[in-house]
């Protein structure tokens, strides 16, 4: 059995000291060990941003792609090898700005992968511009007079486009976050986990203290039922999206792979490549 240490490699992250992404990395490694994975059976696919570097800091197969495109790459990997555990990850700009189209469609499609967004309400890597998660009035290098665009509510959005697993966490809540990632991995379908992961360098508003003050744990909300989509929506609206925990899970809807006609039970990567003569003759006859 692999332990979380087996998911560590010898690369020292180049994140700023205190960056929220450190704990996300630790939670991912723990969750991978807790669900019983071997490093070679995990593929972490990441986007571009400070957060995107995460795939290079985990001892597993890792693919650091291009800005905003971790999800289609991750879905391709999973389609190729359904035995792998595939985690896509990146920043709020990566997933909710440039990659928003993919986020929405990956949710609809429901391929069995886990998507972890490190949400710091800012662009870290490019040194502090506004993100779709920045609040109205938030001043950044690109919004010196304060942002005048509405911020996106990814959890509400996910619910409206048919998500089957929606969760949110805070990077310092290592235990809760680890448990949510485990649940996400085990979920049969697409799981979205948005993690508040403070950027200590460029975001002086949404700090650790700010989150501690403003977040509500769903565990503490009386009678909260994560299988109730309507309740999920109402709770998110009531708390302005600032809740943590499992927001919604639908265990009934089958994953994309389960619904696909003809899709191989065996990993596609093991399929025979040669097309036998009889099969080819049949195909050719249709053109005659």
């Amino acid at each position: 059995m692999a332990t979380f240490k087996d998911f560590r490699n010898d690369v020292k992250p180049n994140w700023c000291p205190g960056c929220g992404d450190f704990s996300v990395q630790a939670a991912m490694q723990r969750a991978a060990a807790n669900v019983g994975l071997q490093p070679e059976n995990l593929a972490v696919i990441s986007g571009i941003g400070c957060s995107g570097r995460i795939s290079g800091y985990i001892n597993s197969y890792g693919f650091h792609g291009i800005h905003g495109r971790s999800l289609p790459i991750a879905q391709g990997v999973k389609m190729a090898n359904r035995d792998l555990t595939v985690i896509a990850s990146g920043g709020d700009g990566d997933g909710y700005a440039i990659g928003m189209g993919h986020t929405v469609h990956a949710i609809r499609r429901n391929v069995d992968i886990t998507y972890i967004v490190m949400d710091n309400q800012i662009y870290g890597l490019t040194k502090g511009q506004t993100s779709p998660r920045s609040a109205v009035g938030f001043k950044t290098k690109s919004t010196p007079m304060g942002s005048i665009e509405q911020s996106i509510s990814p959890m509400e959005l996910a619910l409206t486009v048919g998500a089957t697993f929606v969760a949110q966490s805070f990077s310092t809540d290592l235990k809760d976050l680890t448990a949510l990632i485990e649940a996400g991995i085990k979920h049969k379908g697409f799981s979205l986990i948005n993690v508040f992961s403070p950027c200590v360098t460029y975001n002086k508003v949404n700090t650790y203290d700010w989150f501690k003050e403003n977040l509500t744990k769903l565990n503490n909300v009386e009678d909260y039922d994560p299988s109730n989509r309507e309740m999920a929506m109402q709770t998110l609206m009531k708390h302005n999206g600032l809740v943590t925990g499992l927001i919604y899970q639908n265990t009934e809807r089958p994953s994309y792979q389960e619904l696909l006609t003809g899709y191989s039970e065996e990993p596609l990567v093991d399929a025979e490549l040669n097309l036998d003569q009889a099969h080819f003759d049949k195909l050719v006859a249709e053109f005659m």
Partner: protein
Amino acid sequence: MQINDSIYIFFTYPKGCKEMINQLSWKVGGQQGEGIESTGEIFAIALNRLGYYLYGYRHFSSRIKGGHTNNKIRVSTTEVRSISDDLDILVAFDQETIDVNYKELHRGGVILADAKFAPKKPEDTEASLYAVPFTEIATELGTSLMKNMVAIGATSAVLDLDIHVFEEVVREIFGKKGDKVVAKNMDAIKAGFDYMKDKMDADVPTMVLEKADGKRRMFMIGNDAIALGALAAGCRFMAAYPITPASDIMEYLIKKLPALGGTVIQTEDEIAACTMTIGASYGGVRAITASSGPGLSLKMEAIGLAGITETPLVIVDTQRGGPSTGLPTKQEQSDLMAMIYGTHGEIPKIVLAPSTVQEAFYDTAEAFNLAEEYQCPVIVLSDLQLSLGKQTVEPLDVSKVEIRRGKLVTEELPEIENKGYFKRYEVTEDGISPRTIPGMKNGIHHVTGVEHAETGKPSESSANRIAQMDKRFRKVENIRFNTPVYKNAPHEDPDLLIVGFNSTRGAIEEAMVRLENDGMKVNHAQIRLIHPFPTDEVLPLVRSAKKVIVVENNATGQLANIMKMNVGFAEKITKYVKYDGNPFLPHEVHSKCKELF
């Protein structure tokens, strides 16, 4: 268009005479959505089954209903790969069809027009016009929808064809609807035939097609062959976004892949299509994506990712009229430079350009081998004429398709000390590194679009940068591709070398025959490996020729420029470009070449 006397005319029929012909050009036209396509299809399939070689080219616009559309079909007893210069029979369902197309008819040509619209014959044509009550006869037999069948019957009368040849096809198409419907449609064909036979007098030339060899051959579009090539090569996954003229590839594969355990995902856009294909390929599956110009533009950043991460990637680009939405349903070959150089930065890339449907099959299959052997993007370039032109194809031999996976690791790997990473980007002599895929024990490495060291971990050191760049380019220095240039070069010292790529092959071949008949010495080269450019193969051909003409469907002469860049001899090389959305006709190439001398 000035077709008449200046050009080569295959056949003119003295009036009132039965003429044996070995080639026929037939066109059916009307409003889009009127069943023009199926009329052409039934006619063509039946003749194909008799052993004729067919070549069909559709003229259509990017709307579903309305707008003039036509389907021009060439029938021949020998292989043909080009649209014909002229026309023998024009079947018209509206006056527009006559007005737009009559000039293609030669003097002995025949117009068979629906009497319903009271067709008028233009003054300046010597072709004969027959108003045949297509719609009326069809309506009498039950439904006006069968007017297409009546038209096929009338055509058969002119050609003296036995209408039973259509029975099998009609049964296949309408059989599901019951015997009655089949019988009715056959009745419609017979009624058209009888009507026309009755009307025919000494004034109607009857064109009797020479008998064909009776062999059954495939009748398919280039896109079918591309899709079939992918299947034969073991491709089991496709991600794509619909676009003309590429969609047929995904539509075919979505039907056929499930039986092989695979699938097609229609993605949200072409960026997703390309990156998903990269993901699947990184995962170890042979995967493909296909699009046309606008989609390729969106894929460019991802192509660079495949380049630097050395992930095998097979992309089809079926070119159409650009830029932007351009002429979306028309022929063009203007993506050449973009396919060779597209993506920022520099990566090794392979660009193939099959020039026949058969080559489209073998080259697509081979693209998967090249992608895995050289671990880089391979673009299979096609064009609208090749991708959509429906034609008779000589048998494809699946046993000729090899599967070579290059340096994909298959054996068990030794344990790496201290959780070190597998050297996925090991600097080797040929530049190609061993490749492991997720799931392989002891094969863990990092993959990133950031410049990286041998284990895949990011590195910005100058020495490493140079080592990795050089390694990547070394891979394709000695690329092995079976036939980088299709050559028909009978002369040691030709007057002229004609060069083209993709679908211009047919028009060039026919022009070459005519030029030789004129007494000129002509060689022909069709470039199949566009990049890396096969200079060694092309240079001697250019050197030995007095003049070189490069025939291409674009405005700037992209291939001509690539030739000048790679082989020199700029002063000898003339470009012959056409960018009005239409394919080259043999007579155009013929007269342009004559102009050079």
